């Protein structure tokens, strides 16, 4: 199964950093997301896109994880040569992640 089966994600821009929020579709899946989505895994997922470190915040009462991806936007929205200068589609790359199934 894919991450998109158990979570939504939304990314946005903040200068040269991308922000990435992941919310569990079912709040009971929050611990599973917390275990799966380490900052290291997220950094690996965006290797070649995100040049800097990945920071993570946990918001258990919202069943949400929040990430800041440093040096992710080719100098920022206003300078970037990228088709998606805002990095808005980055969220979908994370949701495409294969995750261990329920069984």
């Amino acid at each position: 199964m894919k991450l998109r089966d158990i979570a939504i994600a939304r990314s946005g821009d903040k200068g040269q950093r991308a922000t990435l929020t992941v919310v569990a579709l079912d709040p009971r899946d929050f611990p599973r997301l917390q275990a799966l989505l380490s900052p290291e895994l997220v950094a690996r997922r965006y290797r070649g896109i995100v040049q800097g470190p990945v920071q993570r915040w946990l918001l258990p009462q919202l069943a949400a994880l929040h990430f800041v991806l440093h040096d992710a936007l080719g100098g920022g929205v206003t300078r970037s040569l990228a088709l998606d200068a805002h990095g808005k589609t980055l969220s979908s790359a994370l949701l495409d992640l294969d995750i261990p199934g329920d069984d």
Partner: protein
Amino acid sequence: MKSFRIGCGAGFAGDRIDPARDLAERGRLDVLVFECLAERTIALAQRRRRDDPAAGADPLLAERMRAVLPACRAAGTRIVTNMGAANPLAAGREVLAVGRALGLRGLRVAVVEGDDVLPWVLRHDGALLDDPRSVAALRPRLVSANAYLGADALLPALASGAEVIVCGRVADPALFLAPLMHHFGWAADDWLRLGQGIVVGHLLECAAQVSGGYLAEPGVVEVPGLADLGFPLAEVAADGSACITKLDGSGGRVDRLSVTAQLLYEIEDPARYLQPDVVADFTQVRLEAAGPDRVHVSGGRGAPRPDTLKVSLGVLEGFVGEGQISYGGAGARARGGLALQVLRERLQRLGLGDLEHRAELIGVDALHGPASRAGADPGEVRARLAARCGTRDEAELIGREVEALYLNGPAGGGGVTTSVREVLAVASTLVPRHAVAPRCTLLQEDA
């Protein structure tokens, strides 16, 4: 105390107009806010004003006002907007003209200025945020410098009783916080309530992004009525807690998912969301379902405001040239790949091999680069070349080289588009509060 009803009529400069009209007509709102000023929009507007002193306000201002002013007058709803962009005074006069044309007698408009700090920035150097250079290094190419004003700058305008308040650069959540402070009489150092007010403002400032926009994932998250999304409103209590909702009968959905995704959208540290009026803390925010399309929000907190204000600097940084061409059918990916290879060689031949550029296939790897999914040969691809150039002439060459693939490239290329854009980049710095002096001017139609 009765709750205060505040809605959002636009979350960006190009947003839909009919949902705002619906809010004005059926929302029984106290205040309707239009947030239309992205980081770079004001720099672009400053350039227009430089060429024409009467220009610089939001181009859709009159259209939006025509759509909502009659209903707002009838319902006693006040309007707050940053559609003044680079010229709030001209925008204020434009609103008066719209009111006159609509026959709205005695319309009063308050104009808030003072965000333009270009003269100060030209005299005082300072460090840039996220950039090792200093402000002085940018001066020859500096187009604009606008400070993010806080809610405090809007309070005199609210106190004036004006029906419409027009400003330029004000922190987006402050457009919502200011009417709450004015209505409930929150003190400027009531950090707890100001923090919760910022939660409400941040939830509303992107309009439909909290009410079902930007959420649909067919098969996973269904959102009804995307063509008729209702824009959000908040019913705010005196302690700042609020119900986020939308109008009955409109499309979209307001629930835990839609509200959480917006709550954290484009925030860095959720414990320290820096605003001109308060450092807001979202980490204790609680959401509770409160009925269909209703979410109760509480628990926002705050700490004392920063000593400095953030300033966005508009800086000219050369040009970007771009061209695209499509290939379809069997072998499309290979032909697109060959096209990119030819384009790279052409850059070398033209002596442009050192330009920072991107050569990629839309449909394969343009969005996610190395993180793209490896898959079957797509039915069509679009080769894209974009390069950072020092001059407009150089940037035009990029598109021409892509266009030349019509007769000189792989078989079956079609649908070429080319573009050249001047890069108006945004840098940021901080200025002390005393560098910024907001002022309010009241405009009134002669009775």
